[in-house]
């Protein structure tokens, strides 16, 4: 990875986000750290409620009440984003970081034409543009994301676009100010597989052309394998495994990652094997367990797992995992029972 040579684009240190609900504090993100290099694609996988979207929303400052960042830092090119004033945040958002959302229909304004929304994004951030030049640039952007007949399409409303087209328009909107970081929150989940394939190809292509870093949030392991360089697996507010895609997919270290991989049916399996599911259900974040969050569902659960949280340790080059099993392998004593 490049990130060692250059400074990292984004550094997150011990980020904690909580939701203060009437029934108690929900620690949606509970102390995660990672860094993202220039020109790198990081995948974040996890089930619903694992905190993957919340973490991304806090980077771009879109957390909604009752959510609050309660600890940690988010450094973007060395500056702590959490210290920004609202005005600085406005400049930061869209210009340096932008986001693509899951459902393009609810994220585009139905009463403005697609062109208007593109031009607005551009003129908000770059005062140098005249309306005419901005329109030209918007048409270029639409062409870049593969919308045919862009000159006509630009004056249409979102409802005149199909699902895949809308997602393309969203991508155009996100990239029009040439941000350094793009956060994609389940951008293909609402789409059909053939359209998903088109959008993934487009994103790979644009990433190469524009050298944008991407944080790609998804629950689909196949999509991660396709597009990401590195991957973080989240469970109940923690990153439990992180590493290069190849390491994580071919040599998964955490029982949860292994469980996810073995419970997914694969197109390339030769014999029909029974799926190995992860038993139980995700934990209740209002009453998290004392020890490892995955402990209650883990096949290899030991005594210590229920008592203490496991530390996040390096298990291979650039490959991290949080599990007590790694200590068992090293020392081979205590906690072998149960």
């Amino acid at each position: 990875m490049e990130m060692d040579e250059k400074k990292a684009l984004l550094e997150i240190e011990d980020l904690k986000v909580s939701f203060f609900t009437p029934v108690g504090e929900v620690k949606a993100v509970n102390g995660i750290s990672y860094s993202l290099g220039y020109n790198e694609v990081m995948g974040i996988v996890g089930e619903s409620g694992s905190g993957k979207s919340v973490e991304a929303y806090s980077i771009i400052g879109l957390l909604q009440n009752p959510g609050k960042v309660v600890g940690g830092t988010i450094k973007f090119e060395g500056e702590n984003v959490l210290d920004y004033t609202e005005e600085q945040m406005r400049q930061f958002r869209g210009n340096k970081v932008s986001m693509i959302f899951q459902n393009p229909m609810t994220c585009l304004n139905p009463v403005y034409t697609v062109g208007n929304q593109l031009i607005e994004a551009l003129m908000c951030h770059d005062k140098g543009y005249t309306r005419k030049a901005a329109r030209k640039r918007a048409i270029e952007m639409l062409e870049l994301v593969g919308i045919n007949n862009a000159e006509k399409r630009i004056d249409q409303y979102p409802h005149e676009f199909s699902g895949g087209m809308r997602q393309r328009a969203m991508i155009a909107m996100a990239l029009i100010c040439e941000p350094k970081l793009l956060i994609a929150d389940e951008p293909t989940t609402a789409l059909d597989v053939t359209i998903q394939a088109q959008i993934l190809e487009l994103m790979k292509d644009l990433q190469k052309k524009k050298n944008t870093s991407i944080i790609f949030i998804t629950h689909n392991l196949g999509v991660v394998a396709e597009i990401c360089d590195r991957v973080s697996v989240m469970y109940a507010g923690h990153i439990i495994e992180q590493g290069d895609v190849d390491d994580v997919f071919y040599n998964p270290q955490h029982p949860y990652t292994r469980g996810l991989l073995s419970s997914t049916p694969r197109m390339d399996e030769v014999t029909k094997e029974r799926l190995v599911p992860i038993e139980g259900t995700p934990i209740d974040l209002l009453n998290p367990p004392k020890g490892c969050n995955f402990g209650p569902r883990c096949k290899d659960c030991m005594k210590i797992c229920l008592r203490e949280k496991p530390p996040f340790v390096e298990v291979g080059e650039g490959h991290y995992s949080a599990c007590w099993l790694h200590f068992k392998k090293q020392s081979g004593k205590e906690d072998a029972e149960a």
Partner: protein
Amino acid sequence: MSSEQNPLIKVENLRKYFPVKGTNPLQKKKYVQAVESVSFNIYRGETLGIVGESGCGKTTLGRTILRLYEPTSGKIIYDGAPIYDSEKKIAVKMLPYRRKMQIIFQDPSASLDPRMTVGEIVGEALDIHKLYSSKKERSERINELLDKVGLNTEHANRFPPEFSGGQQQRVGIARALAVDPEFIVCDEPISALDVSIQSQVVNMLEDLQAENHLTYLFIAHDISVVRHISNRIGVMYLGQMVELADSYELCSKPVHPYTRTLLSAVPLPDPIKSRSRQRILLEGEIPSPLNPPSGCRFHTRCPYATDRCREECPELREQSPGHFVACHL
């Protein structure tokens, strides 16, 4: 599946059109051709998977077979007896058949009445078909069903919103099993669930099938899941069946250009394989079923389309034993 065997369900030229509301009364009435001339058999004890993109008519097909939607025309034969035949004007009363044919819906929270307890939901089917002689028998049966789908018996007194998505889907499955059916339409039963819960439900469906000799029509858009659970797979495009074959044959030797595209679009959870493989990307989007293309419905996006494809609609022919394809090439 041997073709000499008697099919449990035989569907012939089934059509379902939905009229479009709000069209000008002076103009010709418009219809969405959701299912257009679909014919196939489902054999006892098998799982037939149906895949296709959204809007291809797979859910409509499932519901029309159960006559939750009244078919527009065609024939449905259940175990040798016609339950619908538009030519002979047969449309039997469905109540006795509801004991044999059931459905599991996609969205568990939307398909369970939030104001009924789980016991009432599961027991309602028993009430309608009068499947018990005493109150005690009724509650025993409910407990037995909940146990079967991996829920506790005390869950019977709780309400659906108190459960997680996976548990709600289990309630939906228990309700379908209540009448001891032979045939269940599984309409995207797992797509609303989390990845780690999906495999639990898939395994449970497989176990229940083996225990109760069930026949499934398994509808889903996730091809890897359908391939895993099904014996045979049918691929639908714009209301028509374009290919139907044994599931491994279909995935390893797809014939129809649409099937090939669909398969190559499925992301593989394997970084090296997914980097190296060639993908067939389709141009454009699915045409509107209001105004489907002439001839082969796929010709507008097919890279191999010829003049014949534009004019003549290909029929579903048996290309090799058990492998049906609708393509001129």
